[in-house]
């Protein structure tokens, strides 16, 4: 990496590609109280995610896939079951597992650069100039170097999500959790980001858990697509996607996968309705 070579040692250490995490989720259950009674959002869900794997969770809204993501992030606690990252139990949120949300959760009181620095400032053993170099590197990675000092409201939806991605990548987490990050974007911007996220995933080697209700998107990005069934939330079926990367969302092979998954999703809807 020519850029990394120019940087001094502690920064290049910080930018070093680190080992992605292995996730082990075992029998995780979670229920919520709602007006109509207790809703079982997750019912004894078990899932292993390999190091550096890209896993997509799909399902109808309310099937518990976002709940599972929040539990992996440590933002919510399961009622029962265990969650381990690299063998260690997850007890709360931490910068090893960073989240990219559907709405850009960027901070409007900071500019683009300030947002990317936010997580870095919470990381020990980095000097001021280290942090700036690292932030610049990720800003370049998402192609927004020119917008370093832009205010958040001046960015388009796609640019906001790029900044969110850079902010989530900057502290060099082992796991990246993405909760429908492209759902609010237009089709063209989305397609561009599918390319970018695959490229970045290749370059930075992260374990990614990606939640979406867009089947094609899931087939395009995931090594594996897990189909969730609602009420109670369970993993219904698993679809390994064996296509070379980078994948094009419009390719015919991909469409075949998407059709299969969609069919399964639809039959689920029918059994639930019937």
């Amino acid at each position, binding site marked *: 990496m020519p850029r990394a070579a120019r940087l001094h040692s502690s920064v290049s250490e910080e930018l070093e590609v680190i080992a992605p995490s292995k996730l082990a989720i075992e029998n995780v259950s979670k229920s919520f109280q709602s007006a109509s009674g207790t809703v079982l959002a997750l019912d004894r869900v078990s899932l292993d995610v390999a190091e550096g794997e890209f896993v997509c969770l799909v399902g109808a809204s309310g099937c518990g896939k976002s709940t599972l993501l929040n539990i992996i*992030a*440590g*933002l919510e606690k399961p009622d029962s079951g265990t969650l381990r990252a690299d063998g260690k139990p997850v007890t709360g*949120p*931490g*910068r090893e*597992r*960073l*989240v990219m*949300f559907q*709405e850009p*959760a960027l*901070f*409007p*009181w*900071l*500019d683009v650069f300030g947002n990317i620095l*936010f*997580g870095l400032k*919470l*990381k020990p053993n980095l000097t001021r100039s280290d942090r700036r170099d690292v932030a610049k590197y990720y800003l370049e990675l998402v192609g927004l170097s020119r917008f370093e000092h832009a*205010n*958040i*409201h*001046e960015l388009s939806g796609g640019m906001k999500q790029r900044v969110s991605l850079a*902010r989530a990548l900057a*502290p060099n987490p082992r796991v990246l959790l993405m909760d429908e990050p492209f759902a609010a974007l237009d089709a063209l911007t989305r397609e561009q980001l599918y390319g970018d996220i695959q490229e970045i995933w290749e370059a930075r080697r992260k374990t990614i858990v990606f939640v979406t209700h867009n089947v094609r998107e899931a087939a395009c990005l995931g090594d594996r697509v897990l189909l969730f069934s609602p009420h109670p939330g369970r993993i219904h079926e698993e679809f390994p996607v064996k296509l070379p990367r980078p994948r094009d969302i419009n390719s015919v092979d991909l469409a075949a996968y998407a059709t299969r998954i969609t069919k399964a999703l639809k039959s689920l809807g029918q059994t639930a309705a019937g």
Partner: protein
Amino acid sequence: MKRFLLASAFFAVLLLLWEAAFRAKLWSPVLLPSPWQVASYLKNAALDGTLAKATVITMRRLLIGYFIGLVVGLPLGLLTARWKLFGDTIGTMALGLQTLPSVCWVPLALLWFGQTEAAMLFVVVMGTLWSVVIATETGVRNVPPIYRRAALTMGSKRLHMWFKVILPAALPFIVSGMKQGWAFAWRSLMAAEIFVTILTGFGLGQLLHYGRELSAMDQVIAIMLVIVVIGLLADKIFFSPIERFLHHRWGTSQA
């Protein structure tokens, strides 16, 4: 520039109308002095130092009271937003007391503290405090939960969370509360100075009061003008730049 000229023309016309009303002797000159009489009072008061002294005394009272109001109000607002117990008790009390026009504190302050500096300070603090508490509470309650969640995953907690996430996110509300608090403090201080006649220092309100006692209408009008100008300056010098910054950063439209 065009707007400035238009505004200047408007005020020039107002002055002309005033002068015309004076010359037409519509009212007794005791009740309506000419603009020149008011100007000459201002000039004399400025030259003999009366005006500067009164302004300094008034501003000192205002700033001390306002500062106390902020220092007490901000943490109280955070407490009421954070803990239900404080919200149900102090929050409810703040909501009630905020609706009380601050001049209503004057009789109580007079009875408790007598004709003293403390009485005036008390009124100013009461004028400031409750709107700061309520604005801070509203601001903190309106922080989108997603900011907290995002910050949590990046390792922010406790004090860092309060100072680097919650407070900055609530800033637009807090600033508008500070501005309202300032306006209330200013009004309540004038009320207090008019009613509290003490010998520890004549503020602008007291000059106004004695202008009335002496039927010196030029003094009354001149001091009112000074009070208006100070209010405007505080807004332009202190609050406008902060509000401009907030509009710029948040992208909210500038009204």
